[in-house]
């Protein structure tokens, strides 16, 4: 192992997240502390008040829906009034509230309001802790991936989430770019690559033009409400209806516990059918059978054929979206050099076949579709922290979207195009449209649409004091400056009079600096508390281990003493039980269980000392 501070790559997904690193030159996924490579991007406060993150939160997501936050990625960096938030409010079971001034959206969880970056930070912190457990040392640096269509605000919010989690986010990179990076396309010939990403909750398709070290996302499409969960739902419905038919109309969806198990079982069966042609779904004691009757079991066989029949239209929808995206970008399937499959759902044979049929070529294999994005991020993180001559790939910080202003007719005029390397500066000349016009309104926007209204308004200002003149005679110089930190400065100047006005647009996650400070302070308190608990455990373990060693040391003398008497054997048996409980508590790192046994252990020591002393007494030989 080298001495460089470890750096990680994180695929912060809508449904699942993955953390990876480069070790000994090889990119590899870091399993979480439960041994899984995927960590569900779910956070919950359980009914007993315990905070849950990842798989545990997922396993109670239905039984405790109102206190479980999933798909926070749909909301991060969004404005409260946005269409996306409005859509999400109709779908998500947990309560959403507006942030101060409607700048962002917040979520209510167990009676407390959290900013979305705080929720994402909990997932990131879990991944950081997994990485630290794997490395056995602190991990502070990370590259985090986001969808290619994320705007500045969303990227900034993701960065804030990393900061709250105690990570220095070295760079935010696009998911499709990261996937392509993991395949090492930058080292090969120039080509057009399609990244077909069918994840748990969303479907994204991206077309990339890849050169030697340039990864240009030229087109993005997708469906933000199409993913693996829709496939699961089809299986759940099929099971629910067949169960109702067999059991006098019992509707499993009315029982949260049954529905939770049904969802888990359906997802498991779907995954298994990527490798098998048939699988059993066996859920004993699933639902109460009614008064005085035993609980009912669900026992069904699901075939791959049936799964494909149940989900055919979903696969067709993916292909229709792919077709539309390619058409919009003016790319024919035959022009595509490679197709990269990303997301767990692309392991379904029917999806792979549909992709192959549409593009007329086999998709790339060799990298796990659920891990590829995190691996790419890890490669980038490694390149940034341990640069090697000849390998300074990789990705430069670029503007994710076109930046510009609104012009007459409600159109959008791009001043700095998407994928421009930052820092950068660009100036354009504009003119007045009315005679004797003395002021102009500069609306700063970002987006891909020609129509200003379809893009996101970043800020606006008015330049007045323009000299009166006929339309077209006054020239206004508009300059966009983007610093290395992504701060956009926009200025407008009357070329003749020198009259000038400007604004600075800083991408915001919706969190104010005071809020950020409070959150970071809270985090420090949490860490201190955790450290204190760990110290307490270590001290207690040390103390009790010494007592146990002393007891073990007395054991031969005690055995000898017991051979000469019929008394004391019960007490020794009890002592053995105490020792066993202490060992279990140490193994489980359970401070309170260890504390409960401390007195008993001390008594055991006294007992052993007494017995051993008796064994060495005057009558003993």
């Amino acid at each position, binding site marked *: 192992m080298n001495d460089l501070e470890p750096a990680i790559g994180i695929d912060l997904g809508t449904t699942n997240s993955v953390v990876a690193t480069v070790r000994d030159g090889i990119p590899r996924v870091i399993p979480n502390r439960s041994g899984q490579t995927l960590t569900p991007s779910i956070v919950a406060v*359980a009914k*007993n008040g315990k905070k849950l993150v990842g798989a*545990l939160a997922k*396993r*109670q997501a239905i039984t405790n829906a109102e206190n479980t936050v999933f798909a926070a990625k749909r909301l991060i960096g969004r404005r409260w009034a946005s269409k996306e938030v409005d859509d999400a409010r109709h779908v998500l079971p947990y309560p959403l509230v507006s942030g101060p001034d409607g700048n962002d959206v917040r979520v209510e969880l167990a009676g407390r309001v959290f900013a979305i970056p705080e929720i994402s930070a909990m997932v990131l912190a879990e991944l950081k802790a997994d990485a630290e457990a794997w490395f056995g040392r602190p991990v502070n640096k990370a590259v985090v991936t986001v969808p290619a269509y994320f705007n500045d605000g969303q990227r900034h919010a993701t960065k804030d989430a990393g900061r709250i989690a105690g990570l220095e986010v070295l760079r935010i990179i696009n998911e499709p770019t990261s996937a392509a990076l993991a395949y090492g396309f930058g080292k090969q010939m120039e080509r057009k690559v399609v990244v077909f990403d069918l994840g748990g909750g969303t479907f994204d398709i991206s077309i990339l033009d890849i050169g030697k070290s340039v990864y240009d996302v030229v087109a993005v499409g997708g469906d933000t409400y199409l993913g693996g969960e829709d496939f699961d739902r089809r299986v759940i419905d099929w099971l629910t209806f067949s169960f109702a038919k067999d059991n006098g109309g019992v509707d499993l969806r009315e029982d949260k516990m049954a529905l939770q*198990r049904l969802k888990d079982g359906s997802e498991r069966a779907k995954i298994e059918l990527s490798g098998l042609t048939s699988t059993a779904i066996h859920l004993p004691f699933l639902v109460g059978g009614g008064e005085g009757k035993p609980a009912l079991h669900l026992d069904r066989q699901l075939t791959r054929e049936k799964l494909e029949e149940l989900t055919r239209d979903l696969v067709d929808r993916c292909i229709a979206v792919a077709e539309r995206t390619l058409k919009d970008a003016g790319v024919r399937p035959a022009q595509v050099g490679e197709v990269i499959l990303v997301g767990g759902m692309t392991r379904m044979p029917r999806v792979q076949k549909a992709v192959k049929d549409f593009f007329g070529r086999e998709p790339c294999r060799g990298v796990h579709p659920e891990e590829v994005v995190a691996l790419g991020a890890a490669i980038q993180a490694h390149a940034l922290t341990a640069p090697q001559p000849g390998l300074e790939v990789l990705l430069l910080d670029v503007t994710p979207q076109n930046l510009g202003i609104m012009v007459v007719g409600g159109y959008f005029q791009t001043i700095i195009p998407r994928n421009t390397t930052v820092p950068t500066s660009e100036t354009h000349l504009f003119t007045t449209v009315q005679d004797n016009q003395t002021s102009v309104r500069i609306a700063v926007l970002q987006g891909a649409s020609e129509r200003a209204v379809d893009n996101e308004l970043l800020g606006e200002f008015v330049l007045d004091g323009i000299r009166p003149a006929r339309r077209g005679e006054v020239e206004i110089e508009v300059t966009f400056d983007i610093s290395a930190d992504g701060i956009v400065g926009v200025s407008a100047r009357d070329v003749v009079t020198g009259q000038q006005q400007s604004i600075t647009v800083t991408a915001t996650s919706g969190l104010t600096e005071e809020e950020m400070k409070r959150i970071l302070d809270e985090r420090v308190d949490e860490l201190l508390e955790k450290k204190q608990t760990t110290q307490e455990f270590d001290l207690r373990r040390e103390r009790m281990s010494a007592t146990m060693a002393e007891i073990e040391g007395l054991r031969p003398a005690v055995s000898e003493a017991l051979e000469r008497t019929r008394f004391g054997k019960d007490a020794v048996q009890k002592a053995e039980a105490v020792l066993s409980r202490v060992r279990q*508590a140490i193994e489980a790192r*359970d401070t309170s269980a260890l504390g409960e046994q401390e007195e008993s252990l001390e008594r055991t020591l006294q007992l052993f000392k007494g017995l051993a002393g008796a064994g060495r007494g005057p009558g003993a030989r």
Partner: protein
Amino acid sequence: MGEVAELIDRGIKAYVSGRVGEALRSFQEVLERDPENPRARSYLLLIHGGAAGMVPDPIPLPAPAAVPLPGPGGESAAPQPTLSPPVSNPPAAPSSPGGDQFAPSPWDEGPAAAATFVLEPDGGLDLQAVAEKSDLRPLVPDGGTPPAAQAPARKEVDVWMQAAKELFALGDFTGSLELIEKILQVDPDHGSARDYLRQNEATLIAMYESKLGPLASVPRLAIKPEEVMWLNLDHRAGFLLAQIDGTVDYEALFALSGLPRLDTARILANLIADGVITS
């Protein structure tokens, strides 16, 4: 002892459902098998309308059937005074014919004698009290509870509370908890009941958790997965069992279950006791 537990369960269910006669028979049967059974004695005290602080000793205990109890003079024994039912009204009925050969039973006095009924000032019977303690249902539909009828409910609450305290003192926390829950259904703000609810729950949780071992340890299935369906579980136990996959510790199971901690602890302790799971 399994029969005794079953009889107690049956008795409690009958009592809680208002089938007092059936409850009485169940508890009497328990005492036939286990004369010192504290739960049966407490419930019998309750059924007999025992006053606060009354000890459950004077509950009629049947002697072995058809075995005459010899008196000091070699005569068949009459019912011993200490075994008379703790009721003051109506007075004990004379022994049935042939009473020399049979032990006393509350039924000797007729069903009505087994409970305390409130007589109206004019000497009439409180029908509501009869209805509440009888297997019979009122023949007229309920037209809302008349104010006078609420008094017995309050009175019963006091009796239940006393019995709950005694069960608690006897170490029967489950029995005590059942009564406390019954009281809180009638009077959700009953302060003493709330205190006992907390104490009972805390005690039971501690009892069940002590059977689990360290809460950070990970339980595992101790039987083959295909044998699970042959168990006798309810769907809540089925849900918890489905979460036990060798990766989740007890503390996480408490969080995952979504059930009250007491219920989760009880189910897990039962699963361990039945050898279904192991720590």
